């Protein structure tokens, strides 16, 4: 043992004069969360993969589709497949990595109000959707021009601006489903599996239930968010369809997300 430590320590120095730091603005948190989404290999590769698959899908339409299918809608549908299945994973990982990689220990000590951190993640997720989906659609547009030139036809722009905007909204909604599952499950593999169950298995189950059970048939569209979301690809959704989207969204998005946020705020981070 060191004898030096047995001598009494001198009186503490006067603490440096300090001013209370300013609160952390929410916009800064959004910026940080955006950065965290793409500063790891997994984040960057997800983004690169989405873009690469969009190019592959576009090339496939040009190569294999007959001339009458060389339309913007074909290309938009094709580029939407990789984006639709991978963007929700971006949203999931943005949330779950705080637990699966245990970075939450730092994030939630630097920002103890967990609702603010998750709120910033939510905004960052929506921003990614709002930026990435139009980029995908731009790739589709280029494909449409190229395909038309190759086939020697005039490019067909058969999609209205309203549908495009609704398309973006549809992608943001599936990202929010991923986000919600992330908040509820807080484990990366678990939430990804849950997302695929939700998007690939659940629609079939609900459709089968509707086919065999009279009582369910009437409410099917009110409780199946996947199905209800397809109105966003329609030119003229009815008021009832919007209402179905709202009600099923309440069931699958709003209530689970509120529950998840409440649980996260009460849970122990370790």
């Amino acid at each position, binding site marked *: *043992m*060191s004898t030096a*430590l*047995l*001598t*009494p*320590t001198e*009186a*503490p*120095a*006067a*603490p*440096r004069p*300090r001013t*209370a*730091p*300013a*609160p*952390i603005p929410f916009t*800064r*948190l959004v*910026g*940080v969360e955006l*950065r*965290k989404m793409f*500063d*790891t*290999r*997994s984040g960057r590769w997800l983004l690169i993969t989405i873009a690469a698959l969009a190019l592959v899908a576009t090339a496939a339409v040009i190569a294999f589709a007959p001339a009458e299918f060389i339309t913007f809608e074909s290309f938009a549908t094709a580029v939407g497949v990789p984006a639709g299945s991978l963007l929700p994973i971006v949203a999931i990982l943005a949330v779950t*990595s705080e637990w699966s*990689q*245990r*970075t*939450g*220990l*730092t*994030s*939630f*000590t*630097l*920002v*103890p*109000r967990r609702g603010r951190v998750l709120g910033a993640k939510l905004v960052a997720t929506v921003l990614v959707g709002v930026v990435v989906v139009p980029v995908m659609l731009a790739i589709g547009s280029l494909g449409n021009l190229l395909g038309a030139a190759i086939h020697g036809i005039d490019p067909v722009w058969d999609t209205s601006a309203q549908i495009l905007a609704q398309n973006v909204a549809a992608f943001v909604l599936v990202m929010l489903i991923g986000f919600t599952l992330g908040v509820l499950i807080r484990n990366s593999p678990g939430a990804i599996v849950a997302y695929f169950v939700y998007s690939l298995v659940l629609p079939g189950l609900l459709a089968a239930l509707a086919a065999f059970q009279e009582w369910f048939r009437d409410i099917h569209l009110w409780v199946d968010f996947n199905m209800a979301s397809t109105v966003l690809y329609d030119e003229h959704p009815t008021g009832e369809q919007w209402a179905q989207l709202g009600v099923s969204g309440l069931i699958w998005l709003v209530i689970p997300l509120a529950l998840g946020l409440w649980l996260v705020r*009460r849970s*122990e*981070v*370790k």
Partner: protein
Amino acid sequence: MITVESLTKRYGGLTAVDHVSFTAQPGRVTGFLGPNGAGKSTAMRVMVGLTEATAGQATILGRRYTDLPNPGREVGVLLDASAQHAGRTGREILTIAAKTMGLPTSRVDEMLARVSLTDTEATRRVRNYSLGMRQRLGIATALLGDPEVLILDEPANGLDPAGIRWMRDLLRDFADAGGTVLLSSHLLHEIEAIADDIVVIGQGRIVAEGTIAELLASASTRVCAADVTALATALAAAGHEVTLTPDGAVQTDATPAAVGELALAARIALTELRASDGARLEEMFLELTADTQRESRLTDLEGAA
């Protein structure tokens, strides 16, 4: 300053932290000592708002941690150096923290230099860091916001002796500049080397506290003689407490001087006479660790490896 008042945390039937109260003073390094499972980490998690207390409270600089507007600028926290995204580089981890706190990125380079992580090391992914490097990175994160208070959970784990010395100097300087340091350890010698004040915790309860000098100073003397029985009788007759140690020595609460005089008067030849410094603290700590001794030895070995 950190003030912990009657802090209690229960997990079902288990009371992990049991009415713990203490103060960590500015200008001093306070060591939080206890065997594995004593409740150190739980108490520290409660202090920084990661775990909700069942009862009691902790305040830092007079406020609850969760009420601090930008906690990183006032309190540096390192709870688990391994809790980092394995795919980020050390520099990126510091950059994220700096951006969150609203600091310029030049601060990142300063901190990397401060904890002696080289540029090449900083651009490596944390996956490839040794525990010692992770601890340094964690310390860098804690110091980033130029805080007034440091809360460090087992920061010396995984550091080599030179690293422990470095940490001691760093924390000493921090405290000498008026900062408050609370650090935990399950190793007595680590705390002895670094702390000014010690809070000893076992099974969630504080079992001893005081300055290191108070706790190490001992009213106990170890003495050996050719005729141990005569010596013990003489000491007991003079009203001192006497115990025989298994190795044939006498442990007594008399000072060495008093023992020497008694022995001279009784014409007993002594073969050994010394104050047994720190014996009390060490003994108490050994008792506390008795159940978990095997476990802590293992961690000791891991730490040394």
